[in-house]
């Protein structure tokens, strides 16, 4: 009894020292998570130079972000992420206090308050047809005068009041195919000219009263030879266009609505001109640029319409719009790149030879601002468009390697711990609390560049759309290195290179400890699946491209195999568009390893547009001209054809190949056992009826149904099939261990639903004899084959769920012992963690006592959303696209990286940190307690000795 009490008290003491990490306290924010805000690749920028206040630049990006940035530091003042289908067509400012955006193909016009980014008004524009869209905000001298904003969108011209967002007037042009190229305001401010093309050969000028939209005049002219589409406005009454053959420049004057042409052959201006020319988009007075195959020529236009070449640059060049630098002077910038450098040249519009600035910047995918020849700030906005994520370990600590930049000395360490003790004894003052918080946030531990014992510090290797590879430190999100891949740079042989994904190539741990780990970036030259592939290996410690080369085949699939060679390089199988397999690395050793396993390696292809899933086996060599030792032919083994009139594949999900599962048995109530069917060769397929493949609401419940399958990808066997009547996609699913959780919309209930499927192996279920198990006489650890057709049973259950979701993932830990949490990226761009116990098909309304002890929750019709279980707490990962989980070395912890326009990283402990003390654990308090106890023991011993003595004397 005494012992029990003692142990109980000890446990109580220890429990009182540990802090449960289930939800986050306010002061724990930022301890193990970081959040980075980005905006993406910029499409438009408007410099807004207010007389007072901080200077800003207004930008819109390809990620549909509109943002106001500080011109001095590059910080985001405010930003809004518009929906994925709400692409921004144009931005401008009106009345110096509103930012105007035109989006969704010229149909939505919005005004945002410039200082704080609040939306002021929104206006929906309708028109007869889809067309190019154009935003034109007439300049006005008076600040508060109600300007009208002119918008060409959906085939008509709208004038919108900039104060209230009301449509003042609207013109539908007589010719439906009229494409407005420019809107020009006349000097008096009452008349506007609208110029554009009808078809490819007719040029039209409309003169319109700006006040009421009355059509004053309409002139049109036809040009034989036609136009190529590119336009450069060189003055308020002059346009330069290219003819359809791209060999002749046409200068069009439309003074007072009268149209006159002037033809100039490019070969007269530029010697050795051949082929096609392109007019670079620019808006400079009296100047435009023509790009030919050899150079970029800058041509000035005199008021009489005479063309003259002022300069030629031998590289592809971009030209900025003009920016007023004083009352009558305008400047513009030229940017071109050569030899890993960006050349920036700022010139005055009217004086070509006046270089205001000449600058060379090392090539980088940053957006930055150059001020007086110095880069004032730069932002790594490539990180807003991540296409692939993998991880790499940091180097091991070695002798002589200087580790931390700031090592604390003993005194500071003690001081820190004393502060912590004060904090935990509630003695700390407000300043102390702030100091403790600052210390925890700045902890040099977490951003060290070496591997840690718990495996919390890693490198996240991310590939971005621009072809730049970044290594982010998991501790604080800093960019350790970044590399613009040479392999993904435009060359003669590879015109339009794009990255596909990044894979772990070499993870040295046993044989090749001395080698640095490396990753593989796979890309292709072009956008189609038949474009040739690109390979690139990158050392993750140094961030150097080790080797890169173009492939002689296309890349349709990349299959990392569960095989490695003697240097721990992972074998990869690339399937080309013709269905032939290519083995990498290209070494005889890899081939011999692969040949041994050849008969057991299969691959499958999902052809969603044909409603077809095919399984293939490999042959020892391939046919055709590409035959070499590393090429393997394939043969079709099985195929599943979905009826095209009733089913359309919308989603397929498989297990992560590196997922670790601890046990095959699931212990249920009363020590009974169920055997999980754990196979990596399973594919979850969801199909919907073709009518219901559109948006929610496009089909009635009667005509839409969702069918889900679980397919064995080796034998093509369908293990499970279930139909959800009256349901439709989009389907988001996650597959882990022996279960699948998927999310879809139930049209009958008007609610989202989530369903769980668990697969159990029935053929192993009779292993129930304890004696046999003790003696090892069982077949539980013998290898299993898909061809043995194991008998499986499935259990399934559905629940309502409140949110629509963007992504779903599951936590993964090093040994797979820790219970799993589902990570749900909600429509509100947050990540919600939900215990897998909520998705348990064995839940019932009234669980028995033993089921309760097992941890089964009573069944409810909808899943509870607990606000504390948002792992992103108060933050938003704008434009959330993906969630990646990486196991830490410490079993209880998992690392979660969420990306979209923003990045968010955190560390989770789904079953709390049961295998280590938390970081907040106060060792000093423990030490002090021990010392105090020892002192107390001595004091009481001396006292009792004294008392004994005096008792004896009595």
């Amino acid at each position, binding site marked *: 009894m005494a*012992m029990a009490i003692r142990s109980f008290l000890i446990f109580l003491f220890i429990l009182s020292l540990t802090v449960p990490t289930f939800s986050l306290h306010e002061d724990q924010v930022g301890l193990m998570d970081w959040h980075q805000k980005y905006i993406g690749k910029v499409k438009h920028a408007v410099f807004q130079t207010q007389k007072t206040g901080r200077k800003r630049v207004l930008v819109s990006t390809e990620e549909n972000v509109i943002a106001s940035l500080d011109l001095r530091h590059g910080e985001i003042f405010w930003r809004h992420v518009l929906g994925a289908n709400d692409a921004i067509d144009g931005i401008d400012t009106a009345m110096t206090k509103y930012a105007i955006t035109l989006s969704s193909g010229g149909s939505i016009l919005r005004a945002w308050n410039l200082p704080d980014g609040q939306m002021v008004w929104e206006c929906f524009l309708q028109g007869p047809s889809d067309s190019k869209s154009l935003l034109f905000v007439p300049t006005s001298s008076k600040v508060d005068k109600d300007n009208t904003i002119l918008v060409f969108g959906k085939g008509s011209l709208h004038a919108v009041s900039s104060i209230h967002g009301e449509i003042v007037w609207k013109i539908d042009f007589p010719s439906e195919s009229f494409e407005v190229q420019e809107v020009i305001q006349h000097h008096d401010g009452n008349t506007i000219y609208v110029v554009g093309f009808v078809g490819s050969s007719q040029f039209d000028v409309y003169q319109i009263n700006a006040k009421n939209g009355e059509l004053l005049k309409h002139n049109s002219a036809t040009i034989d030879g036609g136009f190529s589409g590119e336009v450069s406005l060189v003055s308020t009454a002059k346009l330069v266009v290219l003819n359809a053959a791209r060999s002749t420049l046409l200068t069009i004057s439309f003074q007072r609505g009268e149209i006159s042409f002037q033809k100039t052959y490019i070969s007269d201006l530029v010697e050795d001109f051949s082929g096609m020319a392109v007019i670079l988009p620019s808006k400079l007075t009296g100047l435009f640029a023509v790009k030919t195959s050899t150079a970029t020529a800058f041509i000035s236009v005199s008021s009489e319409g005479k063309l003259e070449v002022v300069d030629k640059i031998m590289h592809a060049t971009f030209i900025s719009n003009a920016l007023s630098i004083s009352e009558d002077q305008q400047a513009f910038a030229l940017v071109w790149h050569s030899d890993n450098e960006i050349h920036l040249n700022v010139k005055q519009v009217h004086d070509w030879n006046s270089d205001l600035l000449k600058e060379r910047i090392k090539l980088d995918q940053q957006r930055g601002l150059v001020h007086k020849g110095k880069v004032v700030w730069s932002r790594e906005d490539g990180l807003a468009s991540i296409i692939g994520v993998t991880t790499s370990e940091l180097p091991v600590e070695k002798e002589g390697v200087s580790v931390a930049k700031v090592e604390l000395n003993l005194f500071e360490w003690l001081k820190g711990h004393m502060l912590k003790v004060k904090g935990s004894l509630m003695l700390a003052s407000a300043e102390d609390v702030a100091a403790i918080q600052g210390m925890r946030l700045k902890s040099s531990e977490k951003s060290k560049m070496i591997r840690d014992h718990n495996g919390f510090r890693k490198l996240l290797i991310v590939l971005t759309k621009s072809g730049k590879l970044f290594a982010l430190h998991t501790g604080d999100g800093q960019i350790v290195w970044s590399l613009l891949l040479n392999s993904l740079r435009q060359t003669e042989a590879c015109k339009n290179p794009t990255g596909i994904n990044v894979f772990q190539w070499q993870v040295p741990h046993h044989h090749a400890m001395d080698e640095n780990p490396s990753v593989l970036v796979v890309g292709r030259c072009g956008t189609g699946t038949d474009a040739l592939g690109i390979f690139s290996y990158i050392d993750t410690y140094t961030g150097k491209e080790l080797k890169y080369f173009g492939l002689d085949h296309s890349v349709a699939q990349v299959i990392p195999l569960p095989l490695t060679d003697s240097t721990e390089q992972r074998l990869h199988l690339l399937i080309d568009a013709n269905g032939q397999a290519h083995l990498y690395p290209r070494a005889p050793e890899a081939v011999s390893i692969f040949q041994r396993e050849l008969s057991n390696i299969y691959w499958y*292809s999902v052809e969603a547009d044909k409603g077809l899933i095919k399984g293939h086996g490999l042959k020892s060599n391939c046919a055709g001209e590409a035959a070499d030792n590393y090429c393997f032919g394939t043969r079709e083994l099985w195929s599943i054809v979905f009826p095209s009139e009733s089913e359309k594949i919308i989603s397929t999900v498989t297990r992560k190949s590196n997922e670790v599962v601890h046990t095959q048995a699931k212990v249920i109530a009363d020590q009974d056992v169920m055997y999980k069917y754990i196979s990596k060769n399973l594919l979850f397929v969801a199909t919907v009826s073709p009518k219901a493949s559109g948006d929610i609401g496009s089909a009635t419940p009667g005509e839409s149904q969702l069918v889900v399958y679980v397919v064995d990808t080796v034998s093509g066997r369908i293990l499970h099939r279930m139909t959800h009547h009256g349901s439709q996609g989009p389907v988001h699913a996650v597959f882990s261990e022996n279960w699948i959780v998927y999310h879809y919309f139930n049209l009958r209930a008007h609610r989202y639903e989530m369903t769980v499927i668990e697969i159990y192996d029935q053929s192993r279920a009779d292993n129930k004899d304890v004696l046999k198990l003790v003696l090892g006489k069982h077949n539980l650890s013998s290898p299993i084959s898909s061809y043995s057709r194991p008998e499986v049973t499935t259990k399934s259950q559905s629940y309502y769920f409140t949110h629509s979701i963007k992504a779903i993932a599951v936590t993964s830990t090093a040994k797979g012992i820790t219970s799993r949490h589902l990570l749900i990226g909600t429509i509100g761009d947050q990540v919600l963690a939900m215990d897998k116990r909520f998705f348990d098909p064995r839940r019932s309304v009234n669980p028995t006592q033993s089921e309760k002890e097992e941890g089964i929750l009573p069944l409810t019709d909808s899943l509870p959303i607990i606000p504390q279980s948002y792992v992103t707490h108060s933050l938003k990962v704008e434009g959330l696209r993906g969630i990646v989980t990486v196991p830490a070395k410490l079993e209880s912890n998992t690392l979660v990286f969420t990306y979209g326009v923003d990045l968010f990283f955190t560390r989770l402990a789904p079953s709390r940190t049961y295998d280590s003390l938390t970081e907040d654990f106060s060792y000093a308090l423990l030490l002090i307690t021990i010392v105090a106890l020892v002192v107390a023991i001595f004091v009481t011993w001396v006292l009792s000795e004294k008392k004994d003595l005096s008792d004896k004397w009595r």
Partner: protein
Amino acid sequence: MDKGKAVMGSGRRWAVDFTDNSTTPSSRDIPDPPGFYRASQEQDDSAVTKQKKDAEANWKSQKAWEVAQAPFKNLLMMGFMMWMAGNTVHLFSIGITFSALWQPIGALQGVGKVFEPYKDTLGIWKLNTLGLLPTHVSDWVSSLPPAKEVEYSGGGMPLR
């Protein structure tokens, strides 16, 4: 007065004996101080001795009974505690079970060995009800890793 009589009636309560009856009178020149009985314990009055012996025997038998009954009481106590602790594995039940297992071992040198086997089995029985004995299938298979797969298959939708 009654009290006084009774005291008087029970005979002499105290007396001063000035005779030197020390065992080694020759070694002493100085007489013992008044009220000091040298070796008064040894000079047993036969009646007193008998009385004392009786009391001692009584006390001894009482103690013996206590010792004899102690394991049984312990057993009851332990049974009660185990019943109170319930059958779920948590801190208290573990502590109690382990104390139940430890006590018989600790008391091996002691007396009352008759009840020891019962006590031991009680601890084991408790362990079993707590599910801490490996007597179920689940105890033997829960650490078995998933079986290896012969085939490997990869692929999916064509990369975009």
